[in-house]
């Protein structure tokens, strides 16, 4: 163990729980909690040790499938030396105390949950352990140094006496907060680093897990909203007579996003919306289609953009060797969470309760504060399970609708989006157009690399103040940080506005840019007649983490070994969110249909907190990435998103799923991200295999090959 000063001791609170247990909380936001006293202890406890020995943990990050409820609980419980079989974890309420230290807000995204809470969650657990040990030592009248905490029990080593945590909790709650605590060295972890079953699995096999759509409140109405069919259209007027005549329909009224139809149940609300006559002003984008948007991107490329990275002299080298140029296109993508967007709000004069499948508790709370005028402490956010998130549930559109409906209806309202609503009113992964230029010298070495990106900016929509001089760092993730040792290199970005709203989509900029860069790299390697793995390893000579995952994936995949007739390997490596992932895909083409038979994935994410969960997330990333690689895209025609349901926006099905093998590089560095980093290499690994099979580079997604 190493003695470590508490990072935020001034804000740490220890107190007595209802029922006499030990409570430990970390009010984070400066100014909140500083005046907190024991008497006014924040109810937002990270951990509670009950007198009967049960341990309750509150997890600030949203459980959307990535296993964070289990992962964060493991961090706390390991340092607490809790008995894992007695640990329960629940979603925390919205409170400044629960802000993710990496984001400054309570939000789940950017693969930051484990990274953000790595230190503070373990400190909370360690404080609990030390207070319980101290309480036991005082009870026995011995030195705390002679006592040891193990699995929910304090042991006096010289005499073998033992006291259960539950018995000690009340006394521990009255001790002062230590200045510093012992934190475990990696080899001392007992939960971290070992696969633990997910805490949420039992509820997810018997139908009892409560998602946003499963919230049922007394007196609640269900609302569906008629929204503009065109991007940027506006409501002109509506005739609700037929809608109101539908049995079960209770109210019809306009809200900010359209016309809400409220009913006793979803079916009546949906029928009511069908019967509604709405007059829309189609707005300024009614003539827009995907081709027009791409022409704008091409114009953006022609005008040039801001330089995001430059080394050497790209312009000079262009004239000195074999020159390769290519245009790469990446389409818009929808999130398509299996649980469509929804929110439940109960706004009353004295307060507001929100039941949300949200990735953004702070933003949701503030959305309701703005709309209702209620102060923060009167807006309670109850985070349900999320039926998928992938970035979509950081948005506030569905929250606004529920709050507005509940305010107008004067009762609890659940707003439900149909699948059609969900796909046509998403905030989409940006489409981009990329011009790539590379130069090989006489020996086939890559001496120059230029990547010009044109496309819309996510930050321009969600945080315009963070876009300065046309720069959006999320747009060049995976491009500006190209890991390869190439002496002359330039990456530019041209921000091109488009009427299609864009948002964070699992792995964000890296999801497009790794595809573009890793595929163009294979084009240059092919031009040089070199091997994709060997050449990458040479170009990664200063990048040991990249080399390790690449060697691991290639080795386990049998790179270079003979494959069955008609199959080929493709490889890609990408760093994102603090982790590096390499994948080798084994692919064949059968009557124009790309089949992925096997994906070998190697990941370096530092300390592997829960290896089986990391395996799950890599499998998940491969399947998610394959949908964007092989299946659909979002396109626009006459100002409307064309894809409305899973017939036109298909997702990968089980019979198309390859064998997926995951290998984790053992690490002792603090954890990297896990939820997203598996996505970026998928498309290029598969596309590079198709390139190897056909000899034709794959320069746009989804992959289409001639039959």
């Amino acid at each position, binding site marked *: 163990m190493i003695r470590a000063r508490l990072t935020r001791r001034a804000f740490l609170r220890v107190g007595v729980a209802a029922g006499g247990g030990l409570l430990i909380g970390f009010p984070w936001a400066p100014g909140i909690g500083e005046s907190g006293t024991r008497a006014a202890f924040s109810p937002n406890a990270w951990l509670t040790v009950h007198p009967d020995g049960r341990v309750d943990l509150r997890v600030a990050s949203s459980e*959307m*499938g*990535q*296993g964070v409820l289990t992962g964060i609980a493991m961090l706390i419980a390991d340092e607490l030396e809790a008995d894992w079989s007695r640990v329960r974890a629940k979603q925390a309420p919205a409170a400044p105390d629960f802000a993710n230290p990496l984001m400054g807000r309570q939000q789940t995204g950017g693969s930051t949950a484990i990274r953000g809470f790595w230190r503070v969650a373990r400190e909370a657990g360690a404080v609990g352990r030390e207070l319980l040990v101290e309480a036991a030592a005082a009870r026995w009248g011995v030195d705390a140094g002679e006592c040891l905490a193990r699995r929910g029990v304090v042991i006096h080593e010289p005499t073998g006496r033992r006291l259960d945590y539950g018995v000690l909790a009340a006394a521990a709650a009255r001790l002062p907060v230590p200045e510093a605590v012992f934190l475990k060295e990696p080899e001392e972890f007992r939960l971290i680093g070992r696969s633990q*079953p*997910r805490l*949420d*699995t*039992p*509820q*997810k*096999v*018997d*139908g*009892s*897990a*409560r*998602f946003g*759509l*499963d919230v*049922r409140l007394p007196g609640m109405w*269900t609302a569906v909203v008629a929204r503009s069919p065109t991007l940027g259209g506006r409501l002109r007027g509506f005739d609700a007579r037929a809608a109101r005549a539908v*049995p079960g329909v209770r109210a019809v009224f306009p809200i900010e996003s359209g016309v809400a139809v409220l009913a*006793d*149940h*979803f*079916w009546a609300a949906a029928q009511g919306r069908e019967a509604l006559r709405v007059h829309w002003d189609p707005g300024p984008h009614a003539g827009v289609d995907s081709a027009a948007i791409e022409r704008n991107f091409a114009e953006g490329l022609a005008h040039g953009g801001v330089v995001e990275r430059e080394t050497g002299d790209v312009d000079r080298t262009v004239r000195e060797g074999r020159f390769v140029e290519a245009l790469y296109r990446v389409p818009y993508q929808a999130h*398509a*969470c*299996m*649980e*469509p967007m929804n929110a439940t709000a109960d706004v009353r004069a004295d307060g507001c309760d929100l039941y949300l499948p949200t990735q953004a508790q702070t933003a949701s709370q503030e959305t309701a504060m703005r709309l209702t005028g209620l102060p923060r402490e009167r807006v309670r956010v109850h985070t349900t*399970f999320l*039926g*998928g*998130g*992938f970035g979509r549930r950081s948005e506030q559109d569905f929250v606004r609708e529920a709050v507005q409906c509940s305010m107008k209806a004067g009762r609890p309202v659940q707003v*439900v989006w*149909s*699948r059609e609503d969900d796909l046509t009113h998403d905030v989409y992964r940006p489409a981009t157009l990329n011009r790539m230029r590379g130069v090989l010298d006489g020996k086939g070495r890559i001496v120059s690399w230029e990547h010009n990106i044109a496309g819309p900016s996510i930050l321009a929509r969600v945080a315009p103040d963070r876009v300065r001089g046309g720069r959006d760092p999320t747009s060049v993730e995976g491009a500006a940080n190209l890991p390869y040792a190439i002496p002359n290199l330039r990456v530019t970005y041209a921000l091109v506005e488009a009427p299609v709203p864009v948002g964070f989509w699992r792995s964000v900029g890296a999801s497009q840019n790794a595809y573009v860069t890793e595929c163009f790299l294979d084009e240059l390697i092919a031009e040089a007649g070199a091997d994709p793995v060997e050449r990458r390893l040479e170009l990664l000579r200063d990048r040991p983490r990249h080399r390790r995952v690449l060697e691991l994936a290639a080795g386990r995949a049998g790179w270079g070994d003979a494959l069955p007739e008609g199959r080929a390997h493709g490889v890609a490596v990408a760093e994102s969110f603090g982790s590096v992932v390499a994948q080798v895909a084994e692919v064949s083409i059968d009557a124009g249909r790309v089949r992925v038979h096997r994906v070998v994935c190697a990941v370096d994410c530092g300390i592997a907190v829960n290896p089986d969960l990391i395996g*799950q997330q890599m*499998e*998940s*990333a*491969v*399947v*998610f990435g394959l*949908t964007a690689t092989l299946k659909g895209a979002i396109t626009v025609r006459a100002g409307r998103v064309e894809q409305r*349901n*899973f*017939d036109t926006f298909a*997702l*990968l*099905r*089980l*019979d*198309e*799923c390859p*064998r*997926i093998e995951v290998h984790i590089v053992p690490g002792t560095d603090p954890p990297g991200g896990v939820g997203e980093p598996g996505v970026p290499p998928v498309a290029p690994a598969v596309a590079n295999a198709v390139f190897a099979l056909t000899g034709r580079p794959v320069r746009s997604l989804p992959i289409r090959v001639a039959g």
Partner: protein
Amino acid sequence: MVELQVNGRRVEVSLPGEAPLLWALRDGLRFTGTKYGCGIGLCGVCTVLLDGEPVRSCLTPLASVSGRSILTIEGLSPDRSHPVQRAWIAEQVPQCGYCQSGQILTAVALLARHPRPTDAQIDAALSAVLCRCGTYPRIRRAVRRAAGLMAGEAAS
């Protein structure tokens, strides 16, 4: 008012006969374990068993199932002890969990018909239900494990 037989119990629901079974279960009877995903019978997350056969409850009119036996995820076992549920836990299948009721009931129906399914049969049957999280590799393993558990129980 339509009378239904859900999870072995006779219940009444006050939705119109043309309303889909899905909404009768979720909104009328509060069996929220059955999920809404697409409403047009493509994603399979609304799957329930009708006289043992998997059906898309989002496309099944309420009036058409009056008096027939409907099994939802809530009725599969009182304590998650059904071999398919045990296999799902052992293989740690669920991620977000939203589609899993549909996956599990589809697997139950497959194993009733084919107690020792081939890989091709598993792929064919379970391709009926979409999973955006990508739990497919574990679903394959869990179905094989469940088949083994059921064979073991039948033998003992």
